[in-house]
């Protein structure tokens, strides 16, 4: 296997470096009996996805802890391995060896199934993410729809976890999480609809291919259109809420409901939840890359020789760093602020952005189109933003029992 | 059994199970679940006849199911809202206690 990899590299075509994983897969599959070949190919891809993103999860945990530490002027983990680089392994060993506590009154079966379902849903979403040229598990005709459909299963898993624990806090956390996910799913889907409208396809592969090419130095990513930029920002905000990350981490708000729906989980099941959350975040970032950031396409014309999957992962890491950065910066929202933001800012913005995309599509290209689209984005942003900002006239708080 | 008839049998079974839920349980939510199952059985019929029917390129079956899913979503929302409202007034979701419309 290594020999072949070396060989194809030695053949020195950039194509080979780009397609190295496919070549390896073909090579392995060709040695299997004919009846099992297709099954083996799928199995290999699944293994690659699970392994690759599992590794990314490990890297992200240490990255997040180090990054947050530095943001707060701390060192972060620096004991295990070189500068703490082996911390994830230590964490894994710890969580695997910890005692698995299930509350006595808990619904045992559901309690067990919840984390498994979450991780399964999170992993199956990767089936439609093109991580490189020709590197997608299944090129579904309705890929984006598949992504959102499977993504909505997460809500069921969260509910199962919250309900089966027989704990008020976990149920409250689950309810919060579901309400939040449903609310933010609307702007999430609406903002990705712009791209679907522009490409006329739900297939992730087609969407990425439509973003190939450059005009002079600017790549044809949808990020570089007014509606695409607005859509990307809206998408990322909604994605932050969907993956329950700060500043939208109310479902696990420690100060109010301890840890939300996974209070009663410990040991490996807790690790599974952790994994599921992070996988969800990667997946939705991957979708953002696919929809707005040109997928695995290179950002500059003279960089196309770099293998495509490297670009994908570079973009993914950038987004992850952005997530960590935001988490280190912003405080947690209040529930009413969260809902107001979703329904009074995100939803109208996403709808108007849809109109902007349509206008962009039907206007002849030129500066006028840019101007009109920018106005269509900026003006509602300003008005809605102002509306959001001047609403904070809270009444004086009345203490009924404390005085 | 041809594929079509097996599909139809599945649909009939699903319908009957849903119908049993509607007839044999008293909880309004369960009755709603039974209705959802019956609706799904109908949807399955549409898809089966589209798949094995005479003019699949017209997509009529698929379209019908799309609209049916939309209607089902609306129906579920309104139905559940009604259940909540009834519960708030009568403190029960048992369907046979909600009989103020009797003659």
């Amino acid at each position: 296997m290594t020999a072949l990899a070396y060989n194809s590299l030695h053949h020195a075509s950039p194509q080979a470096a780009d397609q190295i994983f496919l070549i390896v897969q073909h090579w392995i599959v060709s040695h299997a009996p004919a009846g099992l070949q297709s099954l083996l190919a799928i199995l290999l891809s699944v293994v690659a996805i699970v392994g690759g993103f599992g590794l990314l999860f490990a890297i992200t945990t240490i990255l997040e802890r180090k990054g947050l530490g530095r943001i707060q002027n701390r060192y972060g983990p620096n004991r295990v391995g070189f500068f703490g680089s082996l911390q994830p392994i230590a964490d894994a060993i710890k969580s695997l060896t910890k005692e698995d506590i299930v509350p006595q009154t808990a619904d045992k079966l559901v309690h067990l199934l919840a984390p498994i379902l979450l991780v399964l849903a999170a992993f199956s979403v990767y089936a439609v993410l093109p991580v490189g040229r020709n590197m997608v598990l299944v090129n579904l005709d309705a890929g984006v729809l598949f992504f959102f459909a499977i993504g909505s299963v997460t809500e069921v898993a969260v509910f199962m976890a919250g309900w089966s624990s027989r704990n008020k806090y976990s149920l409250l956390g689950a309810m919060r999480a579901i309400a939040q996910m449903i609310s933010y799913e609307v702007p999430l889907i609406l903002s990705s609809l712009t791209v679907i409208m522009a490409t006329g396809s739900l297939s992730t592969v087609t969407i990425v291919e439509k973003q190939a090419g450059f005009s002079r130095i600017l790549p044809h990513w949808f990020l570089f259109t007014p509606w695409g930029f607005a859509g990307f920002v809206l998408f990322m905000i909604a994605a932050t809420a969907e993956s329950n990350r700060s500043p939208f981490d109310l479902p696990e708000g420690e100060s109010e409901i301890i840890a939300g729906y996974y209070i009663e989980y410990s040991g490996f099941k807790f690790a599974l939840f952790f994994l599921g959350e992070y996988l969800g975040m990667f997946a939705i970032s991957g979708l953002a890359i696919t929809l707005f950031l040109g997928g695995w396409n290179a950002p500059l014309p003279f960089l196309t020789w770099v293998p495509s999957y490297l670009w994908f992962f570079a973009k993914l890491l950038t987004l992850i760093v952005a997530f960590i950065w935001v988490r280190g910066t912003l405080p947690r929202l209040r529930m009413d602020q969260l809902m107001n933001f979703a329904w009074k800012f995100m939803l109208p913005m996403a709808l108007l952005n849809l109109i902007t995309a349509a206008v962009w599509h039907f206007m002849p290209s030129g500066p006028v189109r840019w101007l009109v689209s920018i106005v269509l984005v900026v003006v509602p942003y300003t008005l809605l933003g102002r509306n959001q900002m001047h609403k904070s006239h809270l009444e004086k708080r009345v203490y009924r029992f404390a005085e | 059994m041809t594929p079509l008839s097996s599909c139809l049998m599945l649909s009939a079974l699903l319908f009957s199970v849903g119908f049993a839920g509607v007839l044999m349980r008293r909880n309004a939510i369960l009755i709603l679940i039974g209705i959802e199952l019956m609706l799904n059985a109908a949807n399955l019929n549409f898809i089966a006849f589209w798949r094995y029917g005479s003019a699949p390129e017209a997509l009529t079956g698929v379209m019908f199911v799309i609209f049916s899913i939309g209607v089902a979503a609306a129906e579920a929302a309104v139905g559940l809202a009604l259940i909540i409202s009834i519960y708030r007034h009568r403190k029960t979701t048992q369907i046979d206690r909600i009989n103020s419309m009797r003659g």
Partner: protein
Amino acid sequence: MLGEGIAKGLIETARNFLGSYVNKDRLTTVQYPEQRLPQAEATRDFPFLVYDGEDWQAGLRCVGCQICEKECPPKCIFIEKSTDKKPDAVGKPQFYPAVFNIDISVCMSCQICVEVCPFDAIKMDTAFELSTVDRFGGLLWDKARLAKPNQHYHHVHPTEAAEVDGRLAEERAKADAKAKAAAEAKTSAPPPAAPPAAPPANSGVSSTS
């Protein structure tokens, strides 16, 4: 403009992030096992029993009066008083604690035992690295584990120990003078009835205050 504050916050955290690599003064964390902060002199955590001289068995100041046991709020001290008397450091016969146990997993470091001890026999220690694999036995300290020499007291709380030693020496001198005067009186005059409440020489109860 919506988002302005967010941008400001992001810039601030980015400055923190980068600054922590450039400017070491930002990182206030002490790398503990390798580096330590100096302890303040008033640091305290768990009590120990002071003994004078070399032999801890003989030099223990504690007389088993059980005041600390009664005063301890979480009731972590357990004392069994001896039935016999042994000479103490100055050779005066005293009761002594047959058993003196402190459960430091219960102790809350309140220092009340130290405040109430009339004999300056129990003092607070500063040792804190006390982890043990035995949750129950390892944290129940007996007399042998608790006994520390007066030098140790001087080592951990020098000022306080000097003050205590000075006071004790003064009392002892006073008691000695009194004894000498009594002896002189005895030689000059016929002995009176046995002095009823002759205070023990190194007891501070009657002489102090």
